[in-house]
């Protein structure tokens, strides 16, 4: 784990009409770390992710990626930097198989003719490297997978592209206990493999099981950054609900 952040946000603001969704957010995530982003509904978690992913453009503030200031105007800019997002409502096509979904929109082709063999081999390799072992066949339609397996495919799809930063928006929201474990294990593995991971979650149990550090957002502002090892769920809940005094922040 290096100390210079891979992604650093300074004083990010974003308004929708008269509603200020982000009122000056500072945020950072380092390589090889799982940073959780928590906060109540409307705290600005999703908006922040969308600003990084290029779905929204921030009104003000600075974004630094790998030490360089960058401007993210659209999803393509984000993808070029190596930023991938796994959305809450899985962006998978049920009718397509695992391989087809992994390469959706970026199919390997020669003169527009699909290179199925290479795509299949690469998919198997990616899944293996992430220890996703429960998928019976990479040629199985996604419709026949369980919720956990589907989420695993969505995550694998995001890391397939030499991405450096993966943002996960509520990856366990719709999953059962065993499947949640499966996905959280996968999230930890991403961090172990040196990626920077941002995990957005409502579920503090999930957060405490996976995250290295926790950023709390409240009313469009960052309340504080907590080391998981040195904090408790109680402290986080207080920060989420009331905001925390600055001295409680650990750096």
């Amino acid at each position, binding site marked *: 784990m290096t100390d210079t952040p891979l992604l650093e946000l300074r004083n990010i603001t974003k308004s929708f009409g008269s509603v200020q969704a982000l009122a000056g957010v500072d945020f950072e995530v380092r390589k090889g770390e799982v940073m959780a982003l928590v906060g109540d509904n409307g705290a600005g978690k999703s908006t922040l992710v969308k600003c990084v992913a290029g779905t929204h453009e921030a009104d003000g503030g600075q974004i630094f990626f790998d030490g360089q200031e960058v401007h993210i105007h659209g999803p393509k800019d984000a993808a070029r930097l190596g930023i991938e997002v796994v959305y809450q409502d899985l962006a998978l096509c049920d009718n397509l198989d695992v391989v087809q979904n992994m390469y959706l929109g970026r199919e390997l082709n020669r003169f527009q003719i699909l290179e199925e063999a290479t795509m299949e*081999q690469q998919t198997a390799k990616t899944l293996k490297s992430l220890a996703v072992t429960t998928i019976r066949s990479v040629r199985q339609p996604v419709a026949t997978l369980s919720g956990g397996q589907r989420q695993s495919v969505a995550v694998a799809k995001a890391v397939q592209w030499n991405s450096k930063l993966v943002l996960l928006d509520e990856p366990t929201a719709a999953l059962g206990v065993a499947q949640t474990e499966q996905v959280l294990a996968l999230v930890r593995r991403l961090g172990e493999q040196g990626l920077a991971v941002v995990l957005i979650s409502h579920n503090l149990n999930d957060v405490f099981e996976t995250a290295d550090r926790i950023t709390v957002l409240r009313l469009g502002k960052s309340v504080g950054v907590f080391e998981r090892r040195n904090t408790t769920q109680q402290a986080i809940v207080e920060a989420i609900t009331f905001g925390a005094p600055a001295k409680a922040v650990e750096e």
Partner: protein
Amino acid sequence: MTSADVIGQDKRPPVDPEEELPGGFAGLRARAWLNLRTGNLGPAPIIVGLAVTVAIFGLTATNFFTATNFANLITESAGTAMLAYGVVFVLLLGEIDLSIGYLAGIGALIVAELQLPGSSWQMNGILAMLIAVIVCALIGGFQGSIVAYVGVPSFVVTLGGFLIWQGVILNKLEQRGTIIIQDRWINYTDSYFFSHWIGWVIAAIVTALYPISVLYKAITARGTHIAQVNPVIFAARAGGLAIVAFGIVGISNHAKVITTSLGLPLAGVILVVFLILLTFLARWTTFGRHVYAVGGNAEAARRAGINVPRIRVLVFMISGATAGIGGIIFAAQVNSVALTFPPGNLLLNAIASAVIGGVSLFGGRGEVRGALLGAVLIGTLQNGLNTLNVSNGWIYIITGLVLLFAVTLDTFAVRLQKRSGR
């Protein structure tokens, strides 16, 4: 954190993704069970349906099982099948195109006008057909762009097209009644028959295509799932294809009009060529993959960076082009374009063909070959009932019941697939 691999397990034991179903007959049973359980029936129901239909008519109708009637069946079904090919792509997107019946009429009208002997613009029939198909594709693309960029539902846009193109045909033909087509190239599309030995050569080429494609995959995709084919299934498919191809040519070669011997109809070859081309487009190209993706989950496709409106426009262009080609074939069948065009229930028969052929109305599921099988089933049904002197009313009723049955089966298949995904 280190025990990730243990935690990562589902209830089921982990299976190596490389592992495949066992080979030979044991694998066959396992695969059949898996497909049945997951609602992945493929073309099986329609092939069974076709076999049953043929058997019933063979036993009851005296002049159904004749070589000449068989050749008729091909030339009669060709136009519908051509339209149904386009319908497959539109349905794959989860859209509908109601304009194709009269768009086929526009295609026929354009070739009829352009070949008109004595007119200042008279041109070669091949050029006329090319222009007609391009115009129909552009019309389809125009309708598709209203769907894709403006966001008007395809049902409404193409319903508008349905009325507009019907009106154009009425305006054009109300005074003149019928335009006779004399150009031989145009008429050949539904009335040219290959000589016997060329028919056999074509059968041999078509038969060879399947093993060649399997071999190609086995070489280029060594060690992957797509390269694996169960030898029993391979033998059954290759054998079945050979029987069908040589059977069609063999029977067609016995067809006669009075004393003139016919042969394999060009219309049948056109159908097979487009079947291969469009299947290639749907299954082997990025465009085809994107069509399935948009039909499966348009939002996911958009997020994956696929230009969804562009795909929609192109699909409606395909639908327009196949309608134009189908229209030309229909015009060639009667060597003219009349006010009564399109014949019968062309639009509904074309959509029914695709649906009976297993193309889902909900988008994302289906194959081009399904349209051909569906059109052949409908053609056989209507041809057989005709030879039995069944009234038109009953022909519609029976076609409708078959359609209803096919869609019900499809809905069950979708439900099974959802359930197997838990």
